[in-house]
C-alpha cells in the first residue's frame, strides 16, 4: 500500500498523509518540481490541472487552473514559501477573491526522505485556516467535491435531529 499513515486533527484543521514509493528521492521530487508531471496528478482525469507558471524556488509563485467538463476554469496559485531540493517544500495554495485579494486555501508542507535503498517516504501536512477554506479546497480539488460535500447533508441533519 502506498499510503502508510493518515492523521486528522479536526480541532487544528490539519490533515497529515504519509506515503512510501519504490523510487528514489529524486524521482519523487520531480513529481513536484516538473510541471508536466505535477499536472498529471494534481487534478483527476475528469478535472485536470494545467500549470502555466511553475519554478519551484523559495519566494516564487506557481500559477495553475483546473478545467471542468463544462469548460469552467477556476484559477489557483501557490506562494512557494520555502524550498530545499530535493527534500522540503512549504507552500500556500491560494485562489483570488473577486476583488483580486488573495484567499488562502491551505498551507502544504512536503517532506521527502529515503527510508531504504530505492524506497522513499513522502509526508504531506495540510493546514486549513478555516472550515470555509476546506470547502474551497474540495471545490478546487475535484469537480465532484462539492456534490460529495453536499451528499453528507442528510447525515448531518439526521444527527441534528437526534441531538434535539
Amino acid at each position: 500500500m502506498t499510503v502508510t499513515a493518515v492523521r486528522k486533527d479536526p480541532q487544528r484543521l490539519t490533515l497529515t498523509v504519509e506515503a512510501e514509493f519504490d523510487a528514489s528521492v529524486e524521482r519523487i521530487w520531480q513529481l513536484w518540481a516538473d510541471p508536466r508531471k505535477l499536472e498529471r496528478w494534481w487534478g483527476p482525469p475528469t478535472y485536470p490541472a494545467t500549470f502555466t507558471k511553475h519554478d519551484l524556488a523559495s519566494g516564487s509563485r506557481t500559477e495553475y487552473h483546473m478545467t471542468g467538463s463544462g469548460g469552467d476554469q477556476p484559477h489557483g496559485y501557490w506562494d512557494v514559501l520555502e524550498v530545499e531540493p530535493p527534500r522540503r517544500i512549504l507552500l500556500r495554495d491560494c485562489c483570488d477573491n473577486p476583488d483580486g485579494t488573495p484567499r488562502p486555501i491551505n498551507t502544504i508542507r512536503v517532506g521527502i526522505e529515503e527510508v531504504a535503498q530505492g524506497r522513499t517516504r513522502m509526508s504531506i501536512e495540510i493546514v486549513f485556516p478555516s472550515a470555509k477554506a476546506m470547502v474551497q479546497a474540495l471545490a478546487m480539488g475535484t469537480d465532484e467535491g462539492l456534490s460529495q460535500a453536499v451528499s453528507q447533508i442528510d447525515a448531518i441533519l439526521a444527527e441534528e435531529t437526534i441531538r434535539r
Partner: protein
Amino acid sequence: MVVSVQIAPPDSDRVFAALADHTRRDIVRRAISAEEGVLELASHYPMSFAAVQKHVAVLERAGLITKQRIGRRRVVRTSLQALLVARRLLDQYEDLWRARIDRMSELIAETGGAVDTMEIKESKR
C-alpha cells in the same frame, strides 16, 4: 460539535439536481466567498443575466445559497458551511489526497516502465 442550521433542511433530490449542472456548481464555488451579487456573478458566464438568475433561483430553492444584504448590496452566499462538519470535510480531503497519491504511484510505475523499455531496446541492439 454543535452546528446551527439556519435555513430550511435541504431536499436532497433538489440539492443533487441543483448540483448536476456545471454553471450552478461554479456559482456555488464562487459564492463561497460571498462577495458578488447576481449581476457580478452573471458577468462570468457566456449567457444572459436572466439565465444566470434562473440558475441562482434553482440553487436558492435547494438551500445551497442565500442572498444576504451587506450594506446596500445583496450578495450571494453559499450556505454549505453551516451544514458541514470539519471531520467530514477532512475525510473527503483525505480521499482527494489518496487519489493524488495513487496517480503519483501510477506515474512512478509508468516512468519506471519507460526506462525498462528503453533498456530492453538497448539490449536488443
